[in-house]
């Protein structure tokens, strides 16, 4: 729902002539931004800047630390503890040990942090922050842009993606956005306008603009209830982001990052490349088709419609519509009903 409350207040002030606030456009949305890389990620802040410049009211609720790979994890009934001062966001913002577990960036009152998982932070945004800022739920929730693509099978382990799932199941229009660039870039106002983070933000703003422009179509909502979008941005040359086409894809199973257990992490090329070159057990990541030292072959998806396979071509921004519940398709449901006929109706 557009920000009628804000719009009408702004217009009233303008009409009274107290001072001339520019009225927000009628298409302005209340947008909550979440992520899993933390509140100081450049991608997140660049998107906030671009969306605000487009006239939207934007608030951020994100983890204070980098929480990549936490998936949908939630620490039930565990109080949010204070900061250690070593979190990614704490280091960047100068927050000391013992600072509150839920707080605000002193430099931007619209950026809140939670010392918790991505989903915990995003739920804070919806259940607490949005109500305080807008008096209700956001019109749109965007998770990301993530530092690294979230495609196919890895989505189950992605905080960025699981924020999307939670928000869809809250009945909110939502999208997860992930960029191919994996480098952690910390936000700074000195970041040049040509920085990739702004190019990625521009790609997202164009999507939002299109959703707003077509809101009256196909059901009269920003997005159909129960459906969101998983968006991935491919690698692209500097300055080429705005020209990237968008393409509808399917989640599929293909992913460059499939979690796998290694008896020795030193057997994992990715672990070794990351400096974890130790003969100790643990989880690492590998591409589909990889044969693990144990002989297990990771599944490989070669479907041309799978988002990861399109991202690999570096030709388009992928858009995969996502439902919030893992209900099997009718064809699988009927097959199971046939197998279990006689003991279940």
């Amino acid at each position, binding site marked *: 729902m557009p920000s009628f409350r804000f719009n009408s207040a702004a217009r009233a002030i303008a009409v009274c002539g107290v001072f001339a606030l520019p009225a927000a456009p009628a298409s302005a949305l209340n947008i909550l931004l979440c992520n899993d890389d933390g509140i100081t990620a450049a991608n997140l802040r660049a998107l906030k800047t671009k969306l605000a410049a487009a006239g939207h009211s934007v608030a951020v609720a994100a983890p204070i630390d980098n929480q990549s790979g936490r998936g949908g994890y939630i620490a039930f009934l565990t109080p949010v503890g204070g900061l250690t001062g070593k979190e990614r966001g704490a280091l960047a913002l100068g927050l000391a040990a013992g600072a509150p577990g839920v707080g605000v960036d002193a430099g931007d009152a619209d950026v809140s942090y939670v010392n918790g998982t991505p989903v915990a932070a995003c739920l804070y945004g919806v259940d607490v922050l949005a109500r305080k800022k807008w008096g209700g739920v956001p019109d749109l929730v965007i998770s990301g842009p993530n530092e690294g693509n979230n495609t196919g099978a890895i989505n189950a382990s992605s905080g960025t993606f699981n924020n999307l799932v939670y928000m869809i199941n809250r009945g909110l229009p939502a999208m997860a956005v992930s960029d191919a660039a994996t480098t952690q870039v910390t936000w700074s106002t000195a970041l040049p306008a040509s920085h990739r983070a702004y190019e990625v933000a521009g790609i997202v703003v164009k999507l939002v603009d299109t959703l707003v422009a077509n809101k009256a179509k*196909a059901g009269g909502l920003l997005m159909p209830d129960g459906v969101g979008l998983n968006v991935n941005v491919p690698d692209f040359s500097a300055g080429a982001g705005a020209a990237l086409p968008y393409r509808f894809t399917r989640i599929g199973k293909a992913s460059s990052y499939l979690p796998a257990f290694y008896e020795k992490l030193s057997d994992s090329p990715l672990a070794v490349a990351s400096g974890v070159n130790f003969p100790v057990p643990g989880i690492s990541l590998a591409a589909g088709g990889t044969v693990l030292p144990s002989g297990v072959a990771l599944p490989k998806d070669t479907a041309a419609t799978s988002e990861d396979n399109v991202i690999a071509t570096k030709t388009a921004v992928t858009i995969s519509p996502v439902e919030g519940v893992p209900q099997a398709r*009718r*064809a699988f449901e*009927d*097959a199971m009903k*046939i197998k279990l006929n006689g003991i279940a*109706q």
Partner: protein
Amino acid sequence: MNYLMKAAMLAVAAGLAGCNGSTNTDPAPTSSVPALGEGALQGYANGDTVSGASIYTNKDGKGFVLLSADGDGAATVMHVVDGSKGRRVPVSANGMVTLTYDRTQAMALNALTSANAAGSYQALVGGKPALFTVAADGAISAGGSDCKLSGKVDFSATYGGAVALTLTASGCGGSVEGSYKGLVLASADTAPATLQLVGENGTAVLDVLAYR
């Protein structure tokens, strides 16, 4: 009603039919649809109660529009179309329905021939398991299940890769009993099912997935 009255009414009906020079006995259209060329499309339909659309048209512009709630669920509405005229099943309580389409795209169906369709199948019909076979000549014969399907697949009547179907369901529960006309198709979208059999009996739509 006695015989004379019936005869009189038939005569009046025949006379009325002759007034416009037509002897067409097809029921009056209950829907209006965009006329399409031969092929199979899927997309979004505006104007009806459900919007997930699969559209199958033969070379003469005749065909079927299947509508389901989300494009994945079973079809609950069918428009039997001839050019731009359609007959909606079930009949809409709101009278004439006018369909328009958004974002239609070609649907890639698996080739369906007498050779690859022939075989034994199992399906759920009205919640009951049904065993049946399809013979090389297209004959559908019921198997040993209580719920029985019989009928005919006409491989020569093609609608963008789907083929014509007549199907009778018996012993499958009151809500699905009857004879249906429609289509058989094979699509990756309905895997692991091998076939989708969908038809209408004038008042209801039956949509069955069949597995080998």
